[in-house]
């Protein structure tokens, strides 16, 4: 009896394992099918749109006649922007569904290249091979990275080379920068984070950093720096508030004007890449970009603390 039960269980387990394999494949193919369907729908809609609305095509964004799905994928750093933008966009065009996946810049551009999404989000400039693959860079906003210290710290300007030395562990005391005799606690983000990637790349300290703490959220970094005397960290410019102090780099304050002027070292573009120029996209995607550059879109960009490119 016991043996029988065991045998039954074993066979069940095996079947389960087999089913497991099978269903994984099925899910994958089902997903692909869905995506294809969605794309088809979009094209159909576009055809209808162009057929019915040819006359008014040049008119100023005739609301409510767009319908279908716009799919975006990519940078996690752009989540706040994308959420706010798609919400606002869908309010204006109730017939349109905007889906955004936050898979990371590289993954987003891969999805764009494979044609599974309309727009690939990237929080860095496109690489040469990505441009060669047909992706076109549309900078929709600029993000600044602020270097923050605790509010009691007397240092308010750090030269870029000294900042790099701090993060490489070569400078370990604030007195070396004209501050108080206080050890520096170097705080950063975990590997894979877009902010860390951008920071290390812009400061040219890629993979040379010696972090005392690696935290996995912007809020975490901010809270730690605020609470730890002598701490230094980096966060998106828009989350800077009274609880911490943002320092100048090479005597350039991290302000919007300086970032637009290109003077501030630690800034990065938020790119919504498309396959080919915007003018070659379907009406939905064109409508999306029109909306971003409209006043309403600009308000959204500002509301999430980003800077509008010139």
């Amino acid at each position, binding site marked *: 009896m016991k043996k029988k039960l065991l045998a039954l269980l074993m066979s069940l387990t095996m079947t389960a394992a087999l089913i497991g394999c099978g269903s994984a494949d099925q899910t994958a193919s089902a997903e692909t099918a869905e995506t294809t369907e969605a794309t088809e729908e979009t094209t159909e809609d576009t055809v209808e749109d162009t057929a019915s609305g040819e006359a008014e095509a040049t008119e100023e964004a005739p609301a409510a006649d767009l319908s279908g799905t716009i799919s975006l994928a990519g940078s996690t750093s752009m989540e706040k922007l994308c959420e706010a933008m798609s919400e606002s966009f869908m309010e204006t065009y109730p017939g349109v569904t905007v889906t955004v996946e936050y898979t990371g810049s590289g993954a987003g551009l891969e999805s764009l290249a494979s044609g599974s999404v309309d727009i690939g989000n990237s929080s860095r400039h496109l690489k040469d091979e990505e441009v060669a693959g047909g992706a076109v860079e549309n900078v929709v906003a600029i993000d600044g990275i602020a270097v923050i210290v605790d509010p009691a710290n007397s240092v308010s300007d750090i030269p870029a080379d000294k900042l790099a030395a701090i993060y490489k562990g070569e400078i370990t005391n604030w007195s070396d920068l004209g501050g108080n005799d206080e050890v520096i606690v170097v705080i950063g983000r975990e590997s894979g984070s877009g902010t860390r990637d951008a920071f290390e790349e812009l400061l040219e300290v890629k993979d040379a950093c010696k972090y*005392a703490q*690696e935290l996995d959220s912007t809020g975490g970094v901010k809270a730690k720096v605020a609470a*730890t005397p002598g701490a230094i960290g980096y966060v998106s410019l828009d989350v800077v508030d009274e609880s911490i102090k943002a320092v100048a780099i090479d005597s350039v304050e991290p302000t919007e004007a300086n970032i637009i002027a290109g003077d501030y070292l630690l800034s990065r573009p938020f790119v919504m890449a498309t396959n080919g120029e915007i003018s070659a996209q379907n009406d939905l995607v064109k409508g999306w970009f029109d909306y971003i550059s409209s006043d309403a879109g600009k308000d959204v960009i500002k509301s999430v603390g980003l800077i509008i490119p010139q």
Partner: protein
Amino acid sequence: MKRRKVIEQTAKTIFTICAAIAILAVASITFYLVAKGIPAAREVGIGKLLFTTSWRPTAEEPSYGIFFIILSSLVSTFASIIIGVPIGLCTAVFLSEIADRITRSVVSSAVELLAAIPSVIYGLIGMMVLSPLMYRLEKAIFAGNETHQFTGGANLLAAVIVLAIMILPTVISVSASSLQAVNDSLRYASLALGATKMQTIWKVVVPAAKSGLLTGVVLGVGRALGEAMAINMVAGGAVNIPLPFNSVRTLTTQIVSEMGYAEGLHRRVLFTVGLVLYIFIMIVNFILLKARRRELNE
């Protein structure tokens, strides 16, 4: 007559299916982890993955050495057991042998409450209370030290303290119930032979409950090894040698903190990290099974 048989049979089938669900879950998790983890381990090289120390998954030439991470997990677990088990064991002895009814109910409800507190709360308290204390201690100990990297109070020691407190309820409740299960005739015999109460506890009751106590310890090890949230908040999260005042990263926090943004091989290697953790947990459970079996035989 026939109807009864059908009902019997149906009930039996339903129970069997329910029992199979648990097995199915374990089997599919095992299968998934192995299927996801092994290829990445092969790609990196198993020796390189397990025995090198440099973790730079996003570098130009990425390296995926998790030796320090494994070591941190083992050291933090071991150290928290060293601190937590004596406290837990003594509390269990107090509960089952010494305390009167009122004290016992107060202490045991405190222990139950301790078990019910979510790990994120432990982490939060650790971050707000423990870290500043640690930082002060760190500054005092390493004053003038040029080579030590100051962590601001997020370190292995903080993780160990938090873990030691977190395993207490497990150790206490399992140990206390196994002490209570010791037959009273042993206690009376010992007392009748002229042994004092303390002699009876340490020389008769505790040895008699040995297997049950071991079960408590092993469950504590499992808890400490598998904890992620609280550790993530107090341990600092940089990959380092597990020394008391170093910021460390364990197998669990490695997965928690990097899974969000990881892509490609980096992501797949995190599954391998999960597999390594799983193997450790399997070993712990195997020991547990052995201990339980011995308990039954006794």
